[in-house]
Each structure stands twice: as C-alpha cells, then as structure tokens.
C-alpha cells in the first residue's frame, strides 16, 4: 500500500501541477457534453425517442462514463512517460511488491477522474440538467463510472507495460474510443441504424450506458447485470495489467 500511495500521490501531483496534463482532461469532457447536449438537443424530438429527464441528462451519462474511461487512458500515457524516463525501472528496484505500482496508478486515475466528474456534474446541474433518480441511484451511477475508470486504466496499463513507448498511445486510446462510440451515444438502441444496433448489442458498454441512463432517470434497470459486467471487465483487465507488469519486469523495466 505504501508503494501504491506513493505512486498515486506522484501521479496526482504531476497531473494537478502541470496545466498541459490537467486542462485537456477537464476540458474535453465538458466540450463533448456541450457539443452533444447543446448541439443535438433537438434529437429529443425524434419520433420514438423517449427519455423522461431530457436530452441533457441522456448525454451527461455518456460523457460521465467517457470521462471515466479516458481518465484511465490518459493515466496510461503517464505510465508510458514513466517508462521512457526510467522512473519505473527505479521504482521496480525499490518496490517490495510491484503490484502496488499498478494499484498506485489505479488510485491516481481515480483521483484524476473524481475532479473531472465533479466539474462535469456542477456544469451539468448549472445548465439545468434534470435528475429523476434518488441518492441511491446516483451513487450507483457514479460507482459504475468508477468501475469504468478502473477498466480504462487497467487496459491502458497493460498496453503501456507491454510496449513501454509513447507509440503505444493510439493502441491505448482507439479501442476505448471505438467501444464507447459503438454504443448508443446519441439515441437509444432502438433508434440506431440496423448495423450499429447489432454491434451495440454485442458491446458491453451499451449495458453500462443504458443502466446508467436508467439510474439518472430514476427507473433503474439491469443494475445487477451492469455491475456484474463491469466487475468482470475489471477482473479481466486486472489480469491483463498484471501480466503486463510481469512482462515489463522480465524486460528489465
């Protein structure tokens, strides 16, 4: 835990003391929220579109989950920087249990996302987002987003520890981007084009997104399935990240 605490503190300190790292992580989710909720609000009037608390809340859930996933991925960029600077090599020599390194990055990604989620929520409420869910629903929504954040970090950490180069950036980012956008981003599943609906049904992000939206609307559905899916993904990506750590160890950091 000492290793995890030190790594997390360093990640957070770097993030919050370096504007070029902090600002994109804060601005991009707000920008997507503005562009989607503001520019597409008329989609609310599309025949067949039914979401009781309005299009702003509909998009808020997507942007919340997206920001969680990308906070994890952006932390993965930091892992790569640590490899390139030789910091991880020194850390591996010093850490009694190297799994603490992954755990530290996990806490770092979470800390980073909490700030983003707070700003995003304040902005969403300030622009008049309606919320139908009660405290428990909202707690569950944010808990689901935390698991998505873990998935993003663990995926990116696994890639970073295998490739250990900034060239790993697109490989960390693109699959996450595609998984997020091959889900019902703009309209419910029923209104997607046929080909996208097929992909969306196979995409686990769809379940997380639809459950999150049902929570904010106060009509929570498929909660157990969504949490089970998210926890399973965290489990799978934990193995991926820890095996990546072993490969990095074998390569000498």
């Amino acid at each position: 835990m000492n290793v995890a605490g030190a790594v997390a503190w360093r990640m957070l300190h770097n993030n919050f003391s370096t504007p070029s790292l902090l600002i994109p992580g804060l601005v991009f989710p707000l920008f997507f929220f503005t562009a989607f909720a503001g520019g597409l609000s008329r989609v609310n009037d599309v025949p067949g579109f039914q979401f009781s608390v309005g299009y702003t809340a509909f998009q808020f859930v997507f942007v919340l989950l997206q920001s969680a996933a990308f906070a994890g991925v952006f932390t993965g960029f930091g892992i790569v920087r640590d490899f390139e600077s030789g910091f991880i090599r020194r850390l591996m020599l010093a850490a009694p249990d190297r799994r603490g390194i992954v755990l530290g990055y996990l806490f770092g990604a979470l800390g980073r996302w909490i700030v983003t989620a707070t700003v995003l929520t304040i902005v969403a409420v300030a622009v008049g987002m309606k919320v139908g869910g009660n405290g428990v629903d909202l707690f569950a929504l944010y808990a689901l987003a935390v698991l998505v954040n873990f998935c993003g970090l663990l995926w990116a950490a696994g890639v970073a520890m295998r490739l250990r180069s900034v060239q790993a950036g697109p490989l960390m980012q693109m699959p996450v981007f595609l998984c997020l956008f091959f889900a019902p981003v703009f309209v419910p599943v029923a209104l997607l084009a046929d080909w996208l609906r097929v992909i969306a049904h196979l995409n686990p992000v769809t379940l997380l997104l639809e459950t999150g939206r049902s929570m904010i609307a106060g009509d929570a559905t498929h909660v157990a399935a969504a949490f089970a899916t998210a926890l399973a993904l965290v489990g799978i990506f934990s193995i991926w990240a820890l095996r990546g750590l072993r490969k990095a160890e074998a390569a000498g950091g």
Partner: protein
Amino acid sequence: MTLAPQVFYLGRRSLIRILRQPANWIFPLIFPLALMAVNTGGLHAATNLPGFPSDSFVAFFLAFPFIQGALFATVNAGVDLARDIQTGFLNRLALTPMQSTALLAGHLGGVIAIGALQALWYLTVGLAIGVRFESGALGAFVIFLLAVLIVFAFGTFGALAALRTGSTEAVHSLFPLFFVFLFISSMNLPRNLIETEWFRVAASLNPVSYLIEAIRSLVIEGWNAEALALGFGIAIALSIIGLTLSSLALRGRMART
C-alpha cells in the same frame, strides 16, 4: 537554382516525409470515416425531424470527413515543420541560397498533395456507400477543389503555429482548438434545427459551418450559389489571412536564425 525547383524539392520532401510515417496518412484516411459511420448510425433517426433537409444522414454528413481530414493534414504537416525548426534543419537551410518563400510554398505543396489524396478517398468512399451527389459529377469535382482549398487554408494556420512557436507540442495543442471549431458547428444538424440558442449563434459565427454547408449543399441540394459563395469566400479569406501571417512569421523566424 530558381524558385520553382526549390519549391519542387521542398514540396517533394514534405510529401515523402508524410508518406513515410503511416500514422500521418492512414489515420486521417480512416478515422474521419469511422466517426462518420458512428454518427450516421447513431443519428440517422434525425432525418425524421420535421425540416431535415435530406432523407439520408450519410449524404448529409459526408462533408464532415473532408473537414476533419483537413484538420489532421494540417496538424501533421505543421508538426513536421516545427520538427524542422527544432532539429535545426531550418537553420541549415537558411545558410543556403534558398528563398524563404520556397520553404513555405514547398511545405504547403506537401499539405495540398496529401489533402488532394484524402479528398479523392472520401469522394470514392461516398460513392461506394451509395451517396448520390445532387450536383452530379461536376459537383463532385467542385467538392474536390473546395476540399483542397480548405486544406490549403488550414495548412497556412498549421504553418503559422509551427513558425511562431517552433514547437511540435504547441502545434499538437492546436488540434483540440480545431476540434472545437468542428464540433461547435452545423456538422450534426442544420443550423435552423439546432434548438439551443447559444449553440446556434456560435455555429452561425463559426466559419467552419459555412465550409461544411458548401460541401453539403453540393451533395444534398445541387447548386446553391449562396452556400458555395460563402464556402469558397471563407476558404479564400482564411487562405489569404493564414498565408500573410505565416509569411510574416517565416520572415521573423529566418531573421532570428
């Protein structure tokens, strides 16, 4: 050596350098189309909105890859120019009899060449997925010309950023700014169907909206003189402003070196 061969050699170098970095040309060819696929799959129901100008969202959205591809080409080429400054290539070039105009023209020549390839690719994909151009084959040619002009206009701003800052990171940081211009525009819905007032005003003030609408008009409307005049007019104005500013920046950069 006269100006023309200087431009040719530097333009060829610029193009070869782009082509030798697959990420610099594969990504701009694929990513805008992937985003188009996602948006059209997700928003095709928007064609049911009263007043929506087309019954095909793919046709409506086809203008988007041209603009996003231009952004990619601009940033990638700007980064290459900034790298030339960082690595001292520009300093070494300044010791030769090369004219400074040739550097800018050669650099922009490379951007235009890659922009032309992209435009052809997007047109081909559009036709392959069944988009029918209301303005016909001539309209497709005009789209190609406008797309190349837009790449040139954006390219001058990429060059400006590179010459002013001499930093690849600074040029990279332009991408989010360009992205904001792209998203706060009429790319997803026609301006008259944007419900949120501030967004509609911002999209109306945003020149990128008119570039998109000019290309879009040729696809879904036919020949709309007003949309084309605005699109070409803005692209030409941006080109003149960008070229003037980047020429001044180049003069300052060469004086410093």
